[in-house]
């Protein structure tokens, strides 16, 4: 059996090689050129060698730096998204506080305050906290099990504003002061301003880190390209000596290094996108469907969105462009040195 199987394998291999030869000849006929004996022994016919050690090392550097830059830009996109989310979420909340006033029915005052809030343009939801809920709000400070009936505990009304709407808080504040005894409106302005400051700082910090990583990427890719080009100096010289024009030599290298940059950049960029997608999935699994809304409100959504992916693609193109342009610069510099 082993003899038969090795015979079958040999037959199958010889058939495969015959098929390849026939296809090659057919292709040669289609292209109208003769099949040249020994032609298959030719190696790399590209003027700039495709798979040199320096080229592969450069592709690896480009891939790693693109990955880091893409992950950083993705992180910054998430921070910016979260900061904007925090701002919009907090700015959509207002609170009306109604303090008990002697001789006034607090429940009636609450109803009046609710009616005034609902009447304000841009308000989508008004919910008054019950007596029990208001008491529970004090539990963290006073402890549980106390009877608070004798204490003048203020009552809270949560007011939710429509997304993007602007409520005339001055008018609402005035109507509450005139129409409801002991009522005051808190639009969290000081909190929102602090939050806005924090968000701006986070965005500026993120953009700063992104800028540094991008600068490091550009510099390291530039130097790696120069290193890879050093081994190609003899090729530049020979092309120059056989009468090639500067544009011809530069285009040979530029094309080759653009390909290298795109290969490395695409590898790094795709790896970064997969990591960001995976991180989004993992965060989704950890927070779970019930905690999703709260987590999204607190941390923002763990997604870089279409804009984030566009930025990663732009980074890949930028880095590939840098490798191509650097190779061109080195060619021009080498030719100037020769002359």
């Amino acid at each position, binding site marked *: 059996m082993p003899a038969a199987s090795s015979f079958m394998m040999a037959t199958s291999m010889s058939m495969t090689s015959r098929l390849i030869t026939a296809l090659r000849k057919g292709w040669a006929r289609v292209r109208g*050129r003769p099949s*040249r004996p*020994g*032609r298959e*022994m*030719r*190696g*790399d*016919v590209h*003027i700039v*060698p495709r798979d*040199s050690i320096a080229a592969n090392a450069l592709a690896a550097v480009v891939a790693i730096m693109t990955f880091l830059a893409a992950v950083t830009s993705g992180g910054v996109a998430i921070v910016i998204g979260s900061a904007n989310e925090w701002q919009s979420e907090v700015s959509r909340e207002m609170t009306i506080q109604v303090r008990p006033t002697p001789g006034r029915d607090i429940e009636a005052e609450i109803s009046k305050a609710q009616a005034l809030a609902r009447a304000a343009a841009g308000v989508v939801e008004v919910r008054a906290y019950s007596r029990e809920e208001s008491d529970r709000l004090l539990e963290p400070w006073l402890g549980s099990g106390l009877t608070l009936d004798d204490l003048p505990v203020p009552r809270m009304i949560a007011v939710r504003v429509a997304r993007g709407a602007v409520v005339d808080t001055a008018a609402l504040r005035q109507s509450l002061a005139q129409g409801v005894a002991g009522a005051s409106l808190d639009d969290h302005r000081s909190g929102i301003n602090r939050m806005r400051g924090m968000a701006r700082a986070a965005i500026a910090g993120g953009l700063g880190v992104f800028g540094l990583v991008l600068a490091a990427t550009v510099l390291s890719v530039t130097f790696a390209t120069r290193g890879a080009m050093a081994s190609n100096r*003899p*090729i530049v*010289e*020979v*092309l*120059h*000596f*056989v*009468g*090639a*024009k*500067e*544009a*011809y030599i530069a285009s040979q290298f530029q094309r080759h290094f653009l390909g290298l940059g795109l290969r490395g950049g695409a590898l790094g960029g795709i790896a970064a996108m997969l990591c960001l997608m995976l991180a989004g999935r993992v965060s989704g699994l950890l927070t779970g469907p019930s905690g999703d809304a709260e987590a999204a409100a607190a941390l923002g959504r763990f997604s870089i969105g279409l804009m984030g992916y566009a930025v990663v693609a732009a980074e890949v193109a930028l880095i590939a462009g840098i490798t191509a342009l650097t190779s061109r610069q080195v060619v021009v510099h080498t*030719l100037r040195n*020769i*002359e």
Partner: protein
Amino acid sequence: MIQFENVGLRYGLGPEILRDLSFHIAPRSFQFLSGPSGAGKSSLLRLLFLTLKPTRGLITLFDHDTASLSADSLAVLRRRIGVVFQDFRLLDHLTTFDNVALPLRVLGREEDSYYEEVTELLNWVGLGEHTWSLPPVLSGGEKQRAAIARAVIARPQLLLADEPTGNVDPQLAQRLLRLFIELNKSGTSVVIATHDIALMDQYDARRLVLHDGYIHVYD
């Protein structure tokens, strides 16, 4: 074809290594360029090959004043000159065929248009069996012949050879000299830089001798 008038050359702020060179190279001529080591033979070849600019004087090449030509025009002019380097300068990742075909490829020609030309020339220089070999597997003499083939494939009007017999045995040196003589007979002007007296004694040709930066011409 080539005219040097009071040409001088110095590197940076160093002393002038070539002084007041005035000579001409006629079409279809054959000459040896000799002189002791360090006399400036390679520098003179580089001036002839337009990869160096003189610090003074005038070089006229194919009726063009080289000082007034742009880089692209110099490249076009360089296509009319073939050079054989002492260290061959073959590209190791290309086959002998592709190395020899490089000047034609640079001209934008398709492989089909020069395939016969290149294989014929390789057969003529005795490298037919090594058409698809890579330079690292060639011997010194074979590399030298491949370099010569690359220098003449585009039918240059002038062939410059820098110590072409420096790395080969006397027998092969004689064969290479015969090759250069054949090329000269076919219409190419030849300048061979060498300090091999025995080689020069084998062929009665014009001699350009460099000494102390000056050139002495023996017709």
